[in-house]
């Protein structure tokens, strides 16, 4: 038997067609990716490394506390110490751009899927497909359409990282207590308002877990990104393989780990009430409550009547 399904030919033809038909689309897309990347790289790359490290440490202090601040400063100093700072900035910029785009697409898709079963059913296999398809498979078409450099790296990272963002957003919104959503409806709230005031806030932990996942997956793509010509830590890793340079490989690899830990901890702390910022916020709330109480007490003194206890429940 010699039956061969010419899937390869079809897909190649398809992409040839896409290249011709949608060339007008991919050129601006490429410029967009490059522009975003350059902007982020400029922000992190222009100031001296030590200034950036100090700012990151302050951010870490606000987000999680002292230990994380010290840890992140040490980690970044290590990167500077092994002379990977510029590469790290390049990788970080790539990751942030790709992750930002992936999240910007994933959250609305997740919301849409949560509200519409048909969309959910359609998206599910597509996401599975994107996540399991080996990255090397979609690199050639990405290269063909976007040419070598940052742009195909962004699109490859985007495709690889988007799935958990969509899934966890959908899960989070579907997981919001149905009765609470019904309460919004029962009082006559517009669906958009219910989304904004009830569903999104309550789904936030899940959505943030999705954001975290997207960023971590993006970071795991730096080596593959390097293969399509994006600058960064991946370049040194690839080079270490071809040159059998064990030392260089580890230096770059450990720098990736440092970035990973930093990004993970930062994103995981969103909305968890850790760090200095949350402490301030809590203090402000407590102060407001105390003020309220004082006002009540004053009112009661004025009226002179006994205060009604909360329904006689004894607190």
């Amino acid at each position: 038997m010699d039956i061969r399904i010419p899937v390869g030919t079809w897909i190649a033809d398809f992409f040839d067609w896409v290249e011709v038909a949608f060339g007008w689309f991919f050129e601006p897309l490429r410029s967009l990716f490059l522009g975003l990347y350059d902007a982020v790289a400029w922000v992190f790359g222009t100031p001296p490394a030590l200034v950036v490290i100090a700012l990151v440490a302050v951010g870490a202090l606000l987000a999680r506390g002292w230990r994380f601040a010290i840890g992140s400063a040490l980690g970044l100093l290590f990167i500077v110490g092994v002379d990977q700072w510029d590469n790290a900035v390049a990788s970080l910029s790539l990751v942030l751009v790709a992750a930002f785009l992936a999240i910007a697409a994933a959250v609305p898709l997740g919301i849409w899927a949560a509200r519409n079963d048909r969309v959910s059913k359609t998206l599910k296999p597509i996401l599975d497909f994107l996540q399991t398809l080996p990255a090397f498979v979609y690199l050639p078409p990405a290269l063909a359409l976007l040419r070598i450099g940052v742009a195909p790296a962004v699109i490859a990272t985007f495709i690889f990282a988007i799935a958990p963002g969509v899934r966890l957003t959908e899960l989070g919104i579907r997981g919001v207590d149905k009765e609470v959503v019904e309460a919004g409806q029962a009082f006559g709230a517009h669906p958009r308002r219910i989304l904004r005031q009830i569903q999104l806030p309550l789904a936030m932990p899940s959505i943030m877990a999705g954001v975290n996942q997207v960023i971590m997956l993006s970071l795991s793509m730096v080596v593959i990104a390097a293969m399509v010509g994006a600058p960064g830590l991946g370049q040194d890793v690839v080079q270490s393989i071809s040159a059998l340079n064990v030392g260089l490989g580890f230096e770059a690899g450990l720098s990736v780990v440092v970035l990973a830990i930093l990004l993970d901890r930062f994103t995981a702390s969103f909305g968890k009430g850790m760090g200095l910022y949350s402490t301030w916020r809590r203090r402000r709330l407590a102060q407001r409550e105390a003020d309220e109480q004082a006002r009540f007490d004053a009112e009661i003194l004025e009226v002179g009547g006994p205060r009604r206890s909360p329904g006689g429940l004894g607190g």
Partner: protein
Amino acid sequence: MNDDTIALRAEGLYKVFGRHADEAVIALHRGTPRDELGAATTAAVIDASFEVRHGEIFVVMGLSGSGKSTLIRMLNGLHGATAGTVEVGGERLTDISPKRLREIRRRRISMVFQHFALLPHRTVIDNVAYGLEIQGVERDERIARARRVTEIVGLQGWEEKHPSELSGGMQQRVGLARALAADTDVLLMDEAFSALDPLIRREMQDQLLELQAELGKTIIFITHDLNEAMYIGDRIAVMRDGRIVQIGSPEDILTNPANDYVEQFVQDVDRTKVLTAESVMRKPRAVVHVGAGPRAALTLMRDEQVAGAYVVSKDRSIVGWVRDRDVFDLVRRGVKDLSSVIQSDHGAVATDTALADLFIPSLEAALPLGVLDSRDRLVGVIPRVTLLAALGGEPEAAVQAAPRPDPMPTAEVDQVLEAAVGAGAAEPKEAL
């Protein structure tokens, strides 16, 4: 019934979940039983019609799965009706635009949920103000109004807490306050107190009744607890398998259950708290007009085979009672006036006295316990047997149970009466 006394009207409401909903409605309409619709089709509510008056507490009661939640959710459009109409304040709620529906929900009808459904990320006061926020009331005013309602439900001092810091009972007070603050005429409450423990629950029921008396809200209350239904309901609809099988006052449901199902359902209600003197009393048989003479009174007691009779004035208001032996004496002595033997300690009770409060008076009264209306007119009596029968849950028996008088021997009475007639004594014949 006048239209502007109706707060909410449901007519021929159907809700069918699953496939072929419209065909299912037609089939049900033709009389196909609900379990022959097929596995993929659930008829949750079948042909429900009722009217709820302004200021009424209308309770929907039924076992789990009988369709109560589905029904109440159709009343504010959370579920669209498969067939039938709902009107709130004279305005149709079925088949209108989503925008108009939201408008009605904002202005006319609010809801209290079984598991409170508070917004966990908002403080108590912001939760209470939520309905007003949706209505577009600006912040200062809505907070001020929410504060007042929070105080009414007894949560002053808790405004800045989050729901998770409150006990279940207090959370439901927030839920109630949120619905009250929205200031709609109609309040839907789906098993609002079912998640609370019994003591708190009773407290909340009392508070609800208090609030209702104060604010005059129209309340539609769902429960599967019969005692709760009987306690707070002005009228009760009993649901079974999606159908409303009976609508009536708590006493109606208890004393005239529409079918075996309802009868079984109401079996373990604490009747003594629900039933009142009025619902078990019987027509008074031996009642004598105060102007009637002893002979007429004695004749009546002989005919009715009773040992005593209540004495009433011309407008039927109670004067007292007489014993047959005393009247017998009067007749024998030829006295023409009853008044000397009328005893005033009749011990009669009001029509709305709960059964639980009838036992002592019933034991103390020499005659079947008298029942008086608001103008002290004797409208019924409750023999002890009737009282006992009513407790046993057999309203029929209560009506049939005969009193066991211990009257004077008839022969003796006849003799005296004849003698009196022989003496030619004349007296007004006014036995009632």
